């Protein structure tokens, strides 16, 4: 196995999945965003997005807050310090591998 392939194999699998990578990349550029924004940008349906968010929350990469905007329920999502670190490391490893 050459060095590049080994680097790719070492990538964080939670982030490497395309759907979750999109979510983490978007959240890395903001303080927090709501579910609707992520749905709009990623064009995923509610079920798929929810399942990716659950996986990221399980890995402690995102923090989910349920709140209300007026009378409408709102789900706010923010990348945790751990999540930011993992994404930074992922980008670094990808750059090294390519």
């Amino acid at each position: 196995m050459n060095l590049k392939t080994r680097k790719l194999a070492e990538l964080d699998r939670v982030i490497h999945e395309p759907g979750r990578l999109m979510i983490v990349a978007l959240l890395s550029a903001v303080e927090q965003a709501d579910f609707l924004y992520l749905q709009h940008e990623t064009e995923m349906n509610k079920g798929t997005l929810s399942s990716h968010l659950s996986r990221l929350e399980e890995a402690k990469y995102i923090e989910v807050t349920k709140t209300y905007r007026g009378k409408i329920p709102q789900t706010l999502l923010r990348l945790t310090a751990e999540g930011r670190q993992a994404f930074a490391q992922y980008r670094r490893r990808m750059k090294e591998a390519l």
Partner: protein
Amino acid sequence: MQEHEEVTKMDQVERLMQRPILYDNIDGAGELALGFFFLGYTLLRWLPIHAIWWHRYGVLLGFLLLIAAIHYGVKAIKTHITYPRTGFVEYRKRGYVWKGAIAGAVVGLFIGLGIVLVAHSHWVVGRSHWVLRMPAALFGLIFAAGYAYKIASTVRWKWAMAAAMAICSFEMAMIPAGAIRAMMGRNSAFATAFGALRLTFAFYGLILLISGGISFVLYLRHTQPASETAE
């Protein structure tokens, strides 16, 4: 083959990271705000010269009202239209403060250079020289380039707006100094330079209002308020 796919994937990731910044103007509110600011500023600076009933403290009060109207207007658009349709985003403050400070310093430097240039032309090359209109034309070109790079590069039809801005800058350099002085009501090198700058602000304000207005209408046509089901 896999390497090529990964390169493409990383390019997409880098592009995705830029999207939240572009989202800020998805509804055209950013352009509308800047357009109102430019036009309002021009009007507030123009009224004391041409309206005899205008009190001098009116400029300050008008300026405060303008800022408040823009701030609360944008907030109302975001809260009642944008967030319910395409979602809420809170930006990272730290990065924005630094970017704002750097942008402010660059603009300040540019205005300072413009003033030095005007003063220099006043002493050396005479009052009617084209150099008096250069700060306005240069400001216009830099603004048009920034607009093209940041906004028009992502929305194709906005290249027409960037082109209109660039043409406006060239036109500004051609306007006779006498016409600008007549508009300003004063006959000095500074009046010519600042008059040209105000005209640029007025034209750019109008272009930004048109661009922001079109963006806003297109946004309303292409989006719907989200349903209130569980997320």
